[in-house]
């Protein structure tokens, strides 16, 4: 049974898709047409940069844990390598037109395919979905996120156990998108005997023994590898094609490059651009700077009075040679960011990135009262224009970004102090507590732009309530968010998103650098390896095969 898709014309005609981002596939052969002829058998070895921690779905924030989870558990909905939404375990994608979403956006019904089985042969149905979300909202369980789940008031499972209806406390435009690629149903018949606390320390979280994905774990050697073999009850007949999938843990980017160069692994994803010169020239392999909904930004801490003047923020954007970052650091042309990723449906191409114009930057600073002194620094009311620039430590390309920023801002008369931190400390402590002035990091969009990139600047998300780490408060912007979240009309949402994009462009609560790709490399003997922008590396391991 092939994954069900929504017909393109219906989608374009205004079919309401909660959380729909891009048009869905127009007909059933489009998805299949992207695949080439498969060959059964073979072993594929994938190099993983980090060892996954918890493998119970939605209990880990690690990208690599989610990747491995995607091979073990099937989602209700998923996106492919182009970001097109498909139904997975679900029979179809809920819409208002097919009656699975209420007009007030407060009731959602997910229908599951009949005849689904777990890898141990037990039935997989709506009761597992019901068990899963209730477990994820249990405060005793360590989870990655509860986005979309907190608003579930109650659920109803149908008599045949094939559908589950969610009753939400407030309208939600993105409820289906919340479930795409991340909320994988868990086996209630195995896990319900444990409390949430027991789940945290169970053997199952380290090595799931029952799952619904294309593979099951045969063995796991800590720090070394995870070996998987086909799931005999996978819902897509005849798949997966590989007879063995091995994740080899290689905790160093240079070591991954070495393993690829020596042809010891077949593929690796999320590679470091500093290795590009070598990666691009490995014979028998293909190097891909893949499409990714990422934006590299320099978030501005608006608690600092210096940065509360929009002229200063605009000067920082004009005065930073982001073209040099894109060209020199990323080895070629990657798009400059205008605050939104081109891959999102809401992207407005008429809003252009700021050009590099240090003269204009200087004029803006002069107008804001920051005059150049004899010491080569700008001063105002006896104060020096001095800013802390922070990012993650031990990151080669961000170090190069910082050198460019240091040089450019020094020429503008800005005293830039660079203070970097380990990634865990930076995201866990420094950004949320505002111990920075310009904080560089990569933001990622999800299937619906509302989920991350725009909500990150809502005033309701100011710490400790959320991830608005720049303390940006703009009532006009908040109103636009509320408008966009209250309608399922995609064309209307696109107009509102355009206005929001304009606000981000004009007000600059963050500096917008460029859209970095997700770099990956794979052996030419490996087929159908095509990581997705939202779904990651392993969304289609059932289709991989080796020649």
């Amino acid at each position: 049974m092939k994954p069900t898709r929504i017909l393109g014309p219906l989608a374009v005609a205004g079919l309401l898709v909660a959380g729909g981002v891009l048009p869905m596939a127009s007909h059933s052969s489009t998805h299949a047409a992207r695949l080439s002829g498969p060959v059964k058998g073979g072993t594929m070895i994938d190099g993983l940069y980090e060892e996954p921690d918890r493998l119970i779905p939605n209990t880990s924030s690690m990208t690599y844990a989610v990747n491995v989870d995607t091979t073990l558990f099937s989602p209700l909905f998923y996106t492919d390598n182009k970001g097109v939404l498909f139904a997975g375990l679900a029979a179809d994608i809920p819409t208002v037109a097919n009656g699975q979403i209420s007009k007030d956006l407060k009731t959602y019904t997910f229908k599951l395919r009949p005849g689904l089985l777990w890898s141990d042969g037990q039935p997989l149905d709506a009761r597992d979905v019901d068990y899963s979300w209730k477990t994820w909202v249990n405060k005793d369980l360590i989870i990655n996120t509860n986005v979309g789940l907190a608003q579930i008031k109650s659920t109803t499972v149908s008599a045949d156990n094939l559908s589950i209806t969610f009753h939400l406390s407030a309208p939600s435009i993105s409820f289906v998108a919340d479930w795409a690629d991340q909320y994988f149903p868990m086996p209630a018949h195995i896990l319900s005997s444990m409390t949430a606390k027991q789940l945290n320390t169970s053997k199952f979280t380290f090595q799931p023994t029952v799952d619904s994905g294309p593979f099951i774990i045969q063995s796991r050697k800590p720090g070394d590898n995870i070996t998987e073999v086909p799931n005999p009850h996978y819902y897509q007949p005849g798949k997966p094609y590989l007879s063995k999938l091995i994740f080899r843990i290689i905790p160093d980017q240079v070591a991954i490059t070495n393993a690829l160069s020596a042809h010891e692994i077949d593929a690796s994803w999320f590679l470091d651009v500093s290795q590009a010169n070598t990666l691009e020239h490995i014979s028998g392999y293909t190097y891909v700077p893949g499409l990714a909904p990422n934006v590299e930004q320099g978030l501005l801490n608006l608690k600092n009075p210096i940065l509360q003047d929009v002229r200063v923020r605009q000067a920082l954007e004009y005065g930073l040679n982001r073209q040099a970052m894109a060209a020199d650091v990323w080895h070629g042309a990657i798009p400059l960011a205008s605050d939104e990723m081109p891959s999102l449906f809401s992207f407005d191409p008429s809003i252009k990135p700021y050009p590099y114009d240090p003269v204009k930057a200087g004029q803006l600073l002069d107008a804001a009262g920051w005059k150049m002194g004899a010491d080569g620094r700008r001063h105002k009311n006896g104060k020096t224009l001095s800013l802390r620039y922070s990012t993650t430590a031990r990151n080669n390309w961000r170090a190069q970004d910082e050198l460019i920023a240091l040089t450019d801002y020094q020429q503008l008369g800005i005293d830039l102090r660079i203070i970097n931190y380990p990634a865990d400390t930076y995201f866990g402590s420094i950004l949320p507590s505002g111990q920075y002035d310009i904080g560089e990091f990569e933001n990622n969009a999800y299937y619906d732009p509302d989920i991350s990139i725009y909500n990150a600047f809502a005033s309701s998300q100011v710490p400790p309530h959320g991830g608005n780490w720049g303390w940006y408060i703009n009532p006009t912007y908040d109103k636009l968010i509320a408008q966009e979240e209250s309608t399922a009309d995609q064309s209307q949402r696109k107009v509102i998103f355009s206005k929001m994009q304009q606000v981000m462009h004009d007000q600059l609560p963050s500096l917008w650098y460029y859209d970095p790709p997700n770099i990956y490399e794979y052996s030419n003997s490996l087929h159908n390896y095509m990581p997705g922008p939202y779904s990651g590396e392993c969304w289609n391991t059932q289709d991989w095969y080796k020649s």
Partner: protein
Amino acid sequence: MGTYIARRLLQAIPLLLVISIALFGLLHLIPGGPEQVAFSPRMSEQARHDMVVALGLDQPLPIQYVKWLWGMVHFDFGNTFKDGQPVITTIGDRLPNSLELLGISFLVALLVAIPLGIIAAVKQYSIIDYLFTVLSYTGISMPVFWFAEMLVLFLSIQHNWFPTGDMQTEGQPSSFIDSVHHLVLPVLVLSFAFIASWSRYLRSSMLEVLHQDYLRTARAKGLRRIRVVLKHAFRNALIPLVTVVALDLSSIFGGAVITETIFSWPGLGRLFFDSLESRDYPVLMAMMVLSAVSVVACNIIADIIYGFLDPRIRYS
């Protein structure tokens, strides 16, 4: 001797207690706890607080320490914050890998360093001695990561003679030959640094001993030179080397993080580094205490060996 050992072991208990308190305090001085660094940035503040309570991190530090100590006394080191598995299992999974890598490296280093040190001392100021000196200083001062990467570049990537890393070839049945094949490069890297430093120590102490009067007397009595060097000089020159080797031996429990990272070797060094990054306190405390125990134990063993090497040394 038995009384001495028992006394040393009893003395070690308060010492380890003080060390554990110091380590616990130092660990909590590191900025950012696991609730800040390990948990998902997308968690709400309430969810983060719930996790803190679930892991017992909301309790005062002395209470946390006492609970940890009580567990440790019962050999219950708790569960890791990272994947919730028992700490003792997590460390136990990696310990054999580190013992294999470092144990073989130590053995190789001893087998090479001892003859080198003896020859360099006996042939002092000869070409062999100068060559040995240059190689020793190269080994001592060469960065491990650079040496490892050069070996991988030339022997693995360019010539495909050895694998770039890992313990065994993935996807194939495990075999002794395959394991040895994977051990060659990391053992070469680790043992080179030990050989360089141990052989220098032995050379120095041999030079001190070789000029002693009793050795001249032994030669005058007609003993062959090799017997004088190996039976009389070497045994007396061994004591300083025992001290150094004993301290280095205790590092098995700390692993070799650089070598393990470059060669993707799943040992204790990488485990410690990963746990430090994610503030996995239970793993860190267990590993640091194990390291402290191994240092104490190795020092006791070294003291015992002194007694065997030098009959003048007596313990009461």
